[in-house]
Structures are given as structure tokens and as C-alpha cells.
């Protein structure tokens, strides 16, 4: 093992045991720009999924009924859905739409397309105050 490797190994051991004060706090303008760009890419992927005839099975797309994601009301979730008889969160309603008007199959909650759809929908609703539970 080279000297450098030994030093790296020792450093990892120390990192694993000793909390390093100061390592998490600072971030640069570059970091901000990178994170924004990562977010923007997911929003774009969300818009793509929102207009993708292959998201469901009948060629119907989300944007057909929801131009600019209007009438999706992301700010109101979680909320009571009388038709489900319980409080639901938004990805459940997205899957409801995929199953019914789109005649497709549910996405997993952590499916990258499900995350992207929520990013796009929320982005189009930016600036509106949170109103959980609102009908």
C-alpha cells in the first residue's frame, strides 16, 4: 500500500468516527447553479412525461385536460378525498389519472417519472401559498 493510500484510509476512518465541523455548511454559487440545473432538468423531464402519449396506454396525455398543469392544485395536498374516504397525497392522484383517463398502469412513488411529474406540476404552480387540505 502506498503512503498516499494509507493516508486516505486513515482519513476515512477519522471521518467515520469524528464529526467534521464545517464540512456541510459552505456551498458556492457554483453549487447553487448545479443544483438549480439538476432541478430544472427534472422539471423538463416532468413536462416530457406530462405530454408523453406513452405514459398511459391510450395515447391520452396529462396536458390534454391540464394545460400548464392547471387544475392540479399541488398546494392543496395532502387533502381529504371523499371518493377515497381518506386523506391522499398528490402522487396517489397522479396514479389515479394514469389508471383512469390514461388507461395505464400505476407508477411506483419513487419512479423517476413520478418524481419528475410532481416537479413539473409544482413548478407551474410556483408562488401560490401552501393550502393543505383545501377544497
Amino acid at each position, binding site marked *: 500500500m502506498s503512503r498516499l493510500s494509507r493516508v486516505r484510509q486513515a482519513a476515512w476512518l477519522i471521518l467515520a468516527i469524528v464529526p467534521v465541523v464545517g464540512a456541510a455548511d459552505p456551498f458556492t454559487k457554483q453549487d447553487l447553479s448545479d443544483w438549480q440545473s439538476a432541478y430544472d432538468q427534472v422539471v423538463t423531464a416532468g413536462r416530457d412525461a406530462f405530454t408523453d402519449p406513452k405514459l398511459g396506454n391510450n395515447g*391520452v396525455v396529462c*396536458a390534454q*385536460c391540464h*394545460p*400548464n398543469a392547471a387544475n392540479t392544485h399541488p398546494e392543496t395536498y395532502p387533502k381529504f378525498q371523499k371518493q377515497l374516504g381518506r386523506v391522499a397525497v398528490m402522487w396517489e392522484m397522479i396514479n389515479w*389519472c394514469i389508471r383512469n*383517463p390514461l388507461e395505464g398502469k400505476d407508477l411506483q412513488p419513487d419512479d423517476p417519472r413520478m418524481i419528475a411529474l410532481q416537479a413539473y406540476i409544482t413548478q407551474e404552480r410556483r408562488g*401560490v401559498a401552501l393550502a393543505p387540505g383545501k377544497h
Partner: protein
Amino acid sequence: MSAMNRRDFLRRTGGLIAGSALPLSLIELAFADEQQNFTFAYISDSHIQHIKGKDFVRNWDRGLIRTVGEANLMDPRPDFVMYGGDLAQLGTKAELDHGLELMSALRHDKVHYVMGEHDYYLDLGEYWERQLGPQWYSFDHKGVHFVVLNSVLTYDEWTHNRWSSGEERMAVMAGLDNPSGSPFMVGEKQRDWLRDDLSMIAKTTPVVVFSHSPLQKIFKNWNFWTEDAEQVQVLLKPFDKVTVFYGHVHQIQYNQIGNISFHSAMATAWAWPYPETYAQVDSLLPKLTVEMNRADPFFERDATGWQFVDVWSGNATLHYSLTENQPRTVAFNPKTGRPEDTVYQNDRIPPQQHF
């Protein structure tokens, strides 16, 4: 049948097909010369969508099938049927043929069609025209002059120079919120035709105009808009009574601008949000409009429907037949000189608050 009014007839026969009373009602209007009063049915925006082979999107098919069934139960029969445009989703022969086949179940002799952008932008209306005739025309009925316009034209440069195929052009225009779309317009050629057509009509003759897009400016991003709306309004201004009916918006809208009353049609396919619900951009929904109830997505026909129109004394009463909702009636009020909802104009209920 004569002893039974339309509501009773619909109640009794409606149970046979719908399993419950049909959501129709009619305000009876009595005028000195009843011969001049008449009713027409007004169906719009079915967006028949082809999947492949013989498969079409079931949901949109059901909307039109149900509407045709309900319209067939009207007694006395309306004098004619207007179709407000967007029979097809992507303008294909398969979609137009299937839509016309469903429409052929109507018992009415005469159906007049309006061109929608979803019918037009694949082949610029060629197949539609072959099946249905000219894209703009006029006719007279019981003393009223009816005009049908193709209001979904746009700039030649956009139509002819930007796209590798009709399919690509249609796909872009089919996306209501697609920023690569282009504003609708009637265009100079058709406005010249309209000027000529109207020059032969007495100014006291009631005029009724049908267009697919609103001949007023509400929200440009979604083409709830006609670019040369004001120039068309100017041509209609000399007439005592003018009513404009339009489709495209999939929601209840009405307005009064000078002598012109405006009414929109519900879609048989699906509901659209009101433009003010898009938080990023301002829109100009007429203040007069009391919105339809917010759509409940768990009822696939909610916030869809069709309408029938009573024309009396040259003014119109629009009866919205809403499949999962109480019917709505928007009637011209001679006292205020504008269309008003007969129940909700000054007393909205919570589902009519959109956000």
C-alpha cells in the same frame, strides 16, 4: 305527446337509457309570434381519438354517444343541430369517419358543422371539407341569419413554412399549452366574405355567428382568443341583435360586448380549467361569467355536456345539459341587456370558485 312538456318527456324516456332522469330542463317562453321562436341543439368538442386499428379512446366516445342519445330524446325536436368543432383529436380520416358515424345516430335531418383546429391542421381541412362542405358559409332560418366561420386559421408562415409534415403541425397545434403554437384568426379573406355576406342583410335581422374559438380575447396562451376578434366585431356592430356561439374552451363562458352576446359550449369529451387558474399569467375571463362547477375527476363525464338554444325575439337562451351536474341556463335579460345565469348570477356556490 302534445299534453306532455319536454321535461316530462325527457324524464320518462331518459330513464330508459340513462337509468335516471336526464339533466335537462326548459324554461318555457311565450311570445306574440310563436312561429318565430325555435330551438336548436348545440354539440361541440368531442375530440374522437384514434388509438390503433378499430380502437378509439373509450372515454371520449362515450361522451359523444351519450350526447347524441340525449339530443335524440328532445321533443319537440330542435329545428337543427350545430356541431361546434373539434370532432377529431388529430384530424385523421379514421377519427373524422368514426366521429361522423357516431353523429349519424342523430335523428335530426340537418347538422351544421364548424371547423376546429383539431379537425384542420393535419391536412388544412381537406378531408373535413370533402365530407361536410365549405369551411365557412351562411344560412337563414325563421328570420335569423346564421353565419359559420373558420376562426382557427393562423399566419401563413406558421402554417406552411415550419413543419416537416402535417402530422407534426397537427401535433403542435393539438397541445393547447404548447408554446410553439400560433394564435387563431379569421383572416382577411374570410372577413371580406363576411362583409359581403352581411351587406345583403337588413340591420334589424337577428344575426347568429358560430366560430370555434371565441371572437373575443380571453387568454392568448391557450387560444381562448381570436387575433382579429375586434375586426370581426366591427363587421357585426351595425346589427341590432348579434349572438356569437363558440366551442374550443370546454367550459361555460358568456359575455356582452356592445350589441354582441357571447356564449360558449361545453365539450362532450373533457373539461378545461378556467384560465385564471394558471397562476403564472394573467387572463381576461369576462366578469359576467359565473363559472361552471369545478370538475370532479372521479366522475369521468363531470363538467362535460352539451346545450340546446332557444332563439326568441332574436335573442338566445342557452340551456347547458351537464351530465353529472345540475343543468345551467344562461338567458338574455332584456332589462340589463346582457346574458345572465338564471340562478347563480348573483349567488355563486362553492364549487363555482376556481383557484
